[in-house]
């Protein structure tokens, strides 16, 4: 792959010369960049649980599959223009979310500032290498996604179909790039660079969940017969959707549509991207790059202190909670640290939050699977005992932060646990455990409990209580079996697969205990579960004591 791109760059040698770009330096830069890219991919590949880096092979593969799913839209719809509209809608959403989460890293490699800028390399060469990098990056996303559809278009519509399709694809990319420029500028106008980075993190989380949802839900949603007979392009409202402009271009160029609405939309579809890119290059790029630079340089935010001034210790939610649930000062220290780090570390959020997004998707998948209309499915879910599934599935999500809390990109800072006179390792572990539970388990469980109560009725209350105690017990046991200091290991170690055992254990525990619980639901009145919950609080209490009594080894 590197050779291929270097070959392309060599082909453009006359162009570079004319632009004032130093070809040898460009080649050296690109070779290093592409090499780094392949190395990065390889590491991502080993670590499937953390596919946050958009340019990983995993993402390419996902894009290929989702592209295949999106192709289904073109095939299914009776009307090709509508199919294309839906196809480009899917494509543009995925493409933009991926770009948003990745752009800063591809656009601005901070290392450029230290390594390349002090060298005698001219600005044009640097710009050219950046541009080439972006082009290669975009191609890497586009090609796998459009490949299935491209083949289909070739078979069905021949060479003209392919050409128009590629043209549409290009337009869609220009639109997305323009749109993202606007979004970035918008965010940057209202948020400090530090905040901006956090927001990018949320886009990464959204991307991961969307890809997951894409796998599971798109195929199911696409075999609705009634939808596919609709012609989107006949609805006037679709004019506000850029993908509909692209669909209209197809209508005009391939089907020969000549009505005013189609022509108007097709005109928009061609003019907006071109105008947008002109705007980006002419006006937006300068300020934009300056600001991006500020972000990657970690410029101090002018937004003032990150948190409110607190002059008294022990005010605020976290402090009250930690004083309530922690026994010693050391435990409190670990609690607060974990609480604050999980709230602020982008790395942690990106790796942990998606697993919570998977639950609703997965539940929805289970729920809409099976025969019957949506209304029938709805009734069936409601009369059944699906709420147990919902509640117990939460543990599969909670086990991610429980296991991940031992990792941090700042793992080296854990020297201070070792140099401090903390009597028992367990105090730190218990503090971190309580913070994770307080932050990730309890709030989500409360939400699920409210959903369960309102959807399945008050009769589920004792079961909710029992599920709470059961899940807490399993969580303590998971932590107890892998007693590592919080935030003290590098993320790379997560790849070494120590979690496989934990994952299996979690799944088995959820299955077995959830199974028993299910039997209780089926065969006993509600008060039995209530009594069970109350009785089980005792072992939970003792397990927690055991956890905080763990010694240094």
């Amino acid at each position, binding site marked *: 792959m590197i050779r291929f791109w270097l070959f392309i760059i060599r082909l453009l040698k006359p162009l570079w010369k004319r632009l004032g770009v130093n070809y040898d330096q460009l080649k050296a830069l690109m070779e290093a960049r592409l090499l780094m890219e392949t190395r990065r991919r390889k590491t991502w590949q080993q670590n499937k649980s953390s596919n946050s880096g958009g340019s990983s092979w995993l993402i390419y593969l996902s894009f290929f599959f989702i592209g295949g799913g999106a192709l289904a839209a073109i095939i299914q719809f009776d009307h090709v223009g509508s199919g294309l509209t839906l196809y480009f809608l899917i494509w543009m959403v995925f493409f933009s979310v991926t770009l948003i989460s990745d752009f800063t890293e591809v656009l601005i490699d901070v290392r450029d500032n230290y390594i390349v800028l002090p060298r005698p390399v001219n600005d044009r060469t640097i710009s050219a290498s950046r541009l080439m990098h972006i082009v290669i990056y975009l191609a890497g996303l586009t090609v796998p996604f459009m490949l299935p559809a491209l083949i289909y278009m070739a078979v069905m519509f021949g060479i003209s179909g392919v050409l128009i399709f590629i043209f549409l694809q290009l337009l869609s990319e220009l639109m997305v790039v323009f749109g993202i420029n606007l979004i970035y500028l918008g965010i940057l106008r209202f948020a400090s660079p*530090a905040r901006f980075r956090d927001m990018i993190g949320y886009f990464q989380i959204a991307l991961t969940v969307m890809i997951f949802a894409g796998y599971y839900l798109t195929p199911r949603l696409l075999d609705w017969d009634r939808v596919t007979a609709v012609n989107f392009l006949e609805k006037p409202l679709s004019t506000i959707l850029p993908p509909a402009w692209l669909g209209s271009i197809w209508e005009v160029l391939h089907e020969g549509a000549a009505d005013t609405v189609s022509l108007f939309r097709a005109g928009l579809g061609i003019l907006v991207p071109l105008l947008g890119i002109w705007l980006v290059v002419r006006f937006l790029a300068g300020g934009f790059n300056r600001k991006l630079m500020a972000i990657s340089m*970690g*410029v*101090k*935010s002018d937004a003032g*202190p*990150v*948190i*409110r*001034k*607190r002059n008294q*210790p*022990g005010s605020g939610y976290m402090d009250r909670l930690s004083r309530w649930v922690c026994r*010693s*000062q*050391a435990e*409190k*220290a670990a609690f*607060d*640290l974990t609480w*604050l*780090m999980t709230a*602020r*570390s982008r790395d942690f959020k990106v790796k942990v939050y998606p697993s919570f997004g998977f639950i609703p998707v997965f539940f929805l998948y289970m729920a809409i699977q099976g025969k019957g209309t949506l209304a029938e499915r709805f009734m069936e879910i409601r009369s059944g005992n699906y709420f147990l599934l919902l509640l117990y599935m939460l543990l599969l999500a909670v086990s991610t932060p429980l296991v991940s809390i031992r990792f941090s990109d*700042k793992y*080296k*800072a854990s*020297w*201070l*646990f*070792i*140099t*401090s*006179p*903390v*009597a028992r390792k367990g105090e730190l572990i218990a503090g971190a455990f309580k913070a994770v539970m307080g932050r990730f388990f309890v709030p989500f469980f409360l939400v699920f409990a409210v959903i369960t109560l309102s959807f399945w009725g008050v009769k589920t209350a004792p079961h909710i209580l029992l599920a709470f105690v059961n899940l807490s017990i399993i969580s303590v046991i998971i932590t107890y079996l892998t007693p590592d200091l919080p*935030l003290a290991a590098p993320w790379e170690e997560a790849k070494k697969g120590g979690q496989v055992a934990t994952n299996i254990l979690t799944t088995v525990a959820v299955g077995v205990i959830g199974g028993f619980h299910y039997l209780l639901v089926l065969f006993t009145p509600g008060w039995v579960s209530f009594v069970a919950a109350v009785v089980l609080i005792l072992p939970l209490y003792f397990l927690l004591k055991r956890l905080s009594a763990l010694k240094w080894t």
Partner: protein
Amino acid sequence: MQEPPPFKAPVISLNRLSKSYGKTQVLFDINLDFYPGQVIGYIGPNGAGKSTTVRILAGLDGEFSGEATICGIDVRKDPLGVKQMIGYVPEMAELYDVLTPREFLTMIGRLHNLSDAVTLERSLRMLRFFGLETNADDRMDTFSKGMRQKVLLISGLLHNPQVLFLDEPLSGLDANSVIMVKEIISRLAAQGKTVFYCSHMMDVVEKVSDRIILIDKGRVVADGTFNELKQQEGESLEQVFSKLTGKQDLDQMAGDFMESFRSDEQ
């Protein structure tokens, strides 16, 4: 050799201390006693065994032969007791920089079992001393290297330790802060605290230390006040250092290095 001050027990005592990593021995039979109120300059080339000694004394590494005690506490038998007595500021140490200094120092205080009120009072006072009070609620990821180093120094002093281990404590600090830290070091010593100062900056070690220990390849090669060392070996501590740690053929080596450019001259 330095005479021990009368009526005082040594606060740090190393007795026949040896240490190996696998088959490579890094410390050979070290015997040293340090007394309250001393500032000890602990110097030596890279890989001489400085950090290893400090790690052992801080109760972080119990795998050694011989004896090491701090305030009479055996570091092997009661590392926690030792950790309670000492403050340790590692070189270029990482800290959780998404926290604010206030949050970070609160955590440190709790790890030392200080009450939150005491921690807060002390840390605000110390932050003010270093001119960081307006940054007390800013995340440290926006901090410069010097600001981080100041927070680290505070974290080592917060619990009022009897013995302070400092590893390149001045790195990244501006001139004013250097003066302030030096002043604090001598005040701590005047209070009877012992400061164990590891550094490569000879000029600073020369000025702050009451006693200088030079180790090379795991052995103590010089021990005394700066004046004593000067009489034996040469004018400045730098000269003493290079004389004792044996880069005699520096001239030859520099010449070799410059040879690399010969292809340019032709």
